[in-house]
């Protein structure tokens, strides 16, 4: 499809009103903003998936027999819940990132983990800590009799967890989970601080180059609100579809 009339209109808009939306008519800015958008979506999707995995595994480990394991898990949850995600990110990227770096050629240190990977690790652990509590509450809402029935049918602890408890718990805890996942999508913007080239970072580059702060700021705000709005819509639809019939908490 040929968008050039649209781009030309934005160029005309700049000439006529001074509204400088370079991301539409300047192909360099357009592409870097587009890649920033893609990086944002990629970061958000990866973190969403991983944080759910952390939540599921963590909630399972909370039922472990070892007190030390449970204690360590609880320590992790409380630590990540009660400290600022931005400071966590800095801690991972600058402090642990330094520890995990090697002396490269010419005395420069080479990091082993990229900033994108650190953002994924940190944000997944951060949201995962909340997910564990959410899944735990969901698992507790599954009646003991159901688990006992599964055991009577010869399910192992893991088997009963994967096939019986988790599907039910997932549906029960979906509203709380959605809330947290929407929060995670919003929190991914903090990866700006460690120079992950996502939308906010790219927008910052663009407004530094083109000196169009108000335009870019509004574009950015609208872009994020729509992005999060889409996530909220999809999640709400999903929530309604998966609601356990007749269940009132």
């Amino acid at each position, binding site marked *: 499809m040929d968008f050039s009339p649209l781009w030309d209109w934005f160029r005309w808009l700049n000439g006529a009103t001074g509204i400088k939306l370079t991301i539409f008519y300047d192909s360099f800015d357009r592409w870097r903003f587009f890649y920033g958008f893609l990086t944002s979506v990629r970061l958000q999707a990866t973190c969403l998936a991983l944080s759910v995995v952390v939540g599921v595994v963590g909630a399972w480990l909370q039922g472990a027999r070892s007190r030390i394991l449970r204690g360590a898990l609880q320590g992790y949850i409380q630590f990540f819940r*009660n400290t*600022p995600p931005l400071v966590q990110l800095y801690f991972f990227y600058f402090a642990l990132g330094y520890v995990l770096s090697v002396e490269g050629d010419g005395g420069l240190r080479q990091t082993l983990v990229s900033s994108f990977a650190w953002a994924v690790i940190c944000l997944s652990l951060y949201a995962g800590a909340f997910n564990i*509590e959410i899944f735990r509450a969901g698992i*507790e809402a599954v009646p003991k009799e159901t688990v006992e029935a599964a055991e009577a049918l010869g399910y192992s602890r893991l088997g009963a967890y994967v096939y019986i408890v988790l599907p039910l718990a997932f549906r029960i805890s979906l509203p709380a989970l959605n809330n947290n996942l929407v929060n995670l999508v919003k929190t991914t*913007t903090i990866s700006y601080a460690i120079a992950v080239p996502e939308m906010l970072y790219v927008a910052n580059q663009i407004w530094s180059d083109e000196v169009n702060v108000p335009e870019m*700021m509004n574009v950015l*705000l609208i872009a*994020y609100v729509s992005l999060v709005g889409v996530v909220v819509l999809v999640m709400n639809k999903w929530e309604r579809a998966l609601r356990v019939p007749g269940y009132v908490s």
Partner: protein
Amino acid sequence: MLLPFRLARPAEPVFSPTARWGLMLIVLFALSVGAAEAQTSAGQPGILATIWKWTPLLAQGFALNIAISFLAMAIGTAAGVPLGICQISLLPPLRGGSWFVTQFFRNSPWLVLLFYCMLLLPFEVNIAGHIVPIPGWIKSTVGLSLPVMANMSELVRGAIRSIPAGQWEAADALAFSRRQILWMIILPQCVKRMTPPWMNLYAILTVATPLCSVVGVSEAMTLTRDALASEARNELLVPMYLYLLAAFFVYCYPIARATQALEKKFAVK
């Protein structure tokens, strides 16, 4: 029968003592200090001594974090309560408008709002011929209070909706006007219900205050990075960041515990 879903369950006795988590952090911190101490070359001051040297400055920064959180919470609550009440207004434009404002600010990332306020609010205003400068931290406080306002608005709406319809009907039968019902019967009951989530919102806001460092406010995070930059000692990185994390933990964890305790106390049996 499926059991009720409860998030705020009191922690099991095995995990409950607060001291345990404090202890864990201290052990973690001590380990990192020990490891860093081992890397300190001769003639340099020790890690603990260095951290102690910077503590007064970091405490000043942390005080600014707390001040920002108090102020943003106050503004957010003051603006959010009327907005939430507007959301149940009988006037469709008012209801729709306040719903839109709430959803808009709830769905926008905190950092983006912070940038927005930081870059687009004026740095000084002219009040009756006097030039009044607006420092950056005030602008970032305004930025943080916007999402607080939206969340508060949702809290108020949720709390009002959670009051059983019987209360409205009974008050109606006693010839209270709508305004009287809201002010004298519904909202007083909401206050109790809203207290735990309100405290939770405060805790969320407090851990969001370091975001101000990204837009250049000299709060604890900025000062920690400045201190690290001026020391230029890599073995200091881990202990210093852990120190800051611990400071936030010590402040926020008791709030989280108190929230849980209140929720348990107010829970309907």
